[in-house]
């Protein structure tokens, strides 16, 4: 399973230099205090630097001026406390096509982002929505704040399977019932639901003042429509609906067009609401997505 790769040392080593692209930092001190590596306003001295015009004179180190007669500005570590919720779609559709390992890709990406967040001592949790042991609803981890506890996510990741039907709106509603402080929500899904469903869900997340990131995960075969040609009785894994379809070049083209249509509409919706949208198509592109697409689209820096 691809998700295991997110716990391999060499993979994690690549993530060490990455920082979640959070647009705004909060200073409200609720909960345990953590130290971040971002310079800014804080109470813990970080370093000294030469005074340049325009620096805030409040941070001028007067003791140094008196002793050395030079102007130094004290810099502090910024105070950051943000909850990162990585909401992963684990419905039945994420398990298909099986060879695409779409769920593995989603979990690997989610775990990677969790690692990046934990690297910054952010409070990170993984939340899965789908069906688990026959019951639909949310399954989540506790908040992890230190990267040393990252491996504690592995059992959770390993036990997740693609089951049940997905409803992003309902999952978000359940998530918001906890009434936690606004944070960052990374929604990882294939978005093979009605547009109104994910649009409502994303709108609700934003309405709760969360910073929302969207990872659109698709399998390689699924996104390109490369299925063995033939006459099939196709069954929707979530709704159970059956349709007879002849697969061939034309069907593959139609499938690609449909994926593009879904992706474009989601991207446009996200763009209109300042939601970061990342298309993660193909499990084989995991490294490229993390190292190239995430930074390019501002999900990490």
């Amino acid at each position, binding site marked *: 399973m691809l998700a295991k790769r997110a716990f391999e040392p060499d993979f994690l080593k690549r993530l060490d230099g990455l920082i979640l692209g959070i647009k705004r930092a909060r200073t409200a001190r609720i909960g345990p205090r953590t130290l971040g590596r971002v310079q800014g306003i804080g109470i813990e001295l970080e370093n000294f630097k030469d005074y340049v015009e325009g620096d805030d004179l409040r941070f001028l180190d007067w003791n140094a001026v008196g002793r050395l007669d030079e102007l130094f500005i004290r810099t502090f570590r910024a105070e950051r406390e943000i909850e990162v919720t990585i909401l992963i779609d684990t419905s039945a559709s994420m398990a298909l096509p099986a060879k695409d390992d779409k769920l593995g890709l989603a979990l690997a990406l989610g775990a990677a982002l969790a690692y990046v967040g934990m690297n910054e001592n952010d409070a990170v949790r993984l939340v899965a929505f789908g069906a688990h042991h026959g019951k639909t609803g949310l399954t989540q981890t506790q908040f992890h704040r230190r990267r040393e506890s990252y491996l504690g996510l592995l059992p959770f990741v390993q036990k997740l399977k693609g089951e049940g039907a997905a409803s992003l709106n309902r999952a978000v509603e359940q998530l918001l019932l906890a009434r936690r402080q606004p944070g960052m929500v990374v929604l990882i899904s294939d978005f093979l639901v009605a547009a109104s469903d994910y649009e409502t869900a994303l709108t609700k997340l934003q309405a709760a003042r969360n910073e929302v990131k969207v990872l659109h995960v698709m399998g390689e075969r699924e996104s390109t429509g490369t299925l063995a040609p033939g006459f099939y009785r196709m069954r929707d*894994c979530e709704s159970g609906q059956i349709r007879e379809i002849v697969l061939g070049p034309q069907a593959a083209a139609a499938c690609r067009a449909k994926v593009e249509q879904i992706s474009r509409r989601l991207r446009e919706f996200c763009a209109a609401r300042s939601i970061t949208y990342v298309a993660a198509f193909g499990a084989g592109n995991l490294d490229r997505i993390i190292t190239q697409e995430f930074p390019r689209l501002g999900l990490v820096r």
Partner: protein
Amino acid sequence: MGFLNPLNLFYGLSLGLLILIYLNARSRSTLEVSSLMLFEEVEQPIAKPKLARVDLLFWLELATLAALSLAVAGLYLKLHAAPERIRRHALIFDTAASMGAVEGNRTRLDQAQRDALAIVSSAPASDQFSVITYAQEATLRHAASGDRSAIRAAIESLAAEAVAARPSAFAAALMLARESDSAELFADRLPAGATVPDSSHLRLHQIGTDAANLAIVSLDSGVPGHTQGRCTIRNFSSQTRTPELAIDCDGHEVYRSSVSIPARGQVNLNFGPLASGGLVHARLLTSDALEADNQRWTYATANRAFHVLIVSPDAQVRDDLARVVRAIDPNFEITEIDPPHLNGLADAHFDLALMHDFYDPGLHAASRLLIYPNRPPNAAPNRAGELSIGKSVPYCEMSERIDGGILTRPILLGAGRIITLPIWMEPIARGVGPGSVTMPIAAIGANRDGRLGVLAFDVRGHLLLDPDRIDALILTVEMIKSLAAPQGLYIVSSGTYVSVPATGRARVQAPDGSSTSAVADQWGQVRVRPLQAGRYQVSSAGGVQQIFANYYDADESDLESKPVTMHAGEPGAGEYASITSSSVRPITLLLITLAVLAFLSESALLAGRTIIGRRSDV
């Protein structure tokens, strides 16, 4: 069509394998997908695929495998060569009495006719058929002809006759069919004693199953007022039967009774004595399979003076004949005389004259019976149409009763005279003399001088009283009875010719109501041969003559089915279409050519698809 190596059809299983592969490939597997949403834009198939709508490649592969399988199995065609000559088929029908037996709702002959018509219908148009029947004698009913309607009409016109089949008639029928390429024999049995030639072209269609039958074997009226009559009934079925018998005398019922007869048994019923003479008619009122032997006629002599003259040079013979005549009817007035003393009776008139070793045509008698006839030296020469008496033979043997009478075995009779019968006399019994010369033994007829019977054998030495030669006595008694019957009444066995006096054109009405016309010959006789049991009536300007035909034959009346084994001939009914000459021609080369063509077509199709695929990729 056939196969040289049918076992190699095993390779045809490859066709089944191909079809299984095809069906598996065509089966619609269920594919679970993440969402049907992705395939919303995919066009729905215009028509649901059907198993029968298969790829052309499949048909080509199927044709290839089929052609190869058939080639390996050695498929060949049986080609019918053009008939080199017209084929002739003889349809031989047994029309004896047993073929008239009813089984179900039709007779055995009906079944034979139906089978024959089926053969005619299935035969090639160029074939010719002839229709031959046999019973007492063989008859060519229709010569070989390709006219199917005429052949069918000839077949449909056949009717069973109340006579027994003779082996000689059967042999004659086969002779008539000897020119035919094949002969189809329709019979329920072969005549007793018939020999079947080892001919490959004869095929028997045995008709009929076991059927129950009762028959009146004999009827004796007795002497009115003196002795009882006797009727013998025989049961030919394998179960006990209880028939009802009725006996009439001149239209008045004199006896009616039911009697239980054990399986394959026989009973004698006594009746009377009759109060008066007349025509006695016995009939079985219980219906059975064969109607012809269910009635019988005889004549009881009337209580009138009946003068019989017995003339013989031998006193013993005169005495024996007188005993016989008196046994027939004790009321007969008998006069015995030696020929030299016959002049004293020159003006006397007799009803019946029995002349032994003597013949005087000028004797006044209504009926005459010549026994061992001898023309006196001073007699006038024979006129045309008269009985001709030839030389004597030291012995003769009665070998056959022609009139249907019973002859258990050939009887050596002693001395005889060879006679030549005029056309108006009918032979009753035949025999052989020294050197196997065939000669008439007994005959009867009538001309303007009255009835005339003749027995060719000598009765000296108490021949008529010899129990070992009782058939001779029976023959004599029957002759005397026939001659003693009233004028205009003839009681004969069916199948025998009867000459009855007539004037001009006569109308002969058969028992079934059909009638034919005949013209009296120069002797004022009409020759009738009753082939049905019952009453015939011959009407002419000269008056009405009645003929009562009795039928009984132990072999024919026994309707038990006995399988007949014959040499298996060529194919018969329904197989005439394949009887024409044919040749076997394997078509292996053709099949292999077809397979190669199909294989090349498949390759071309695949190549074409590949080229089209590459272009579309570009």
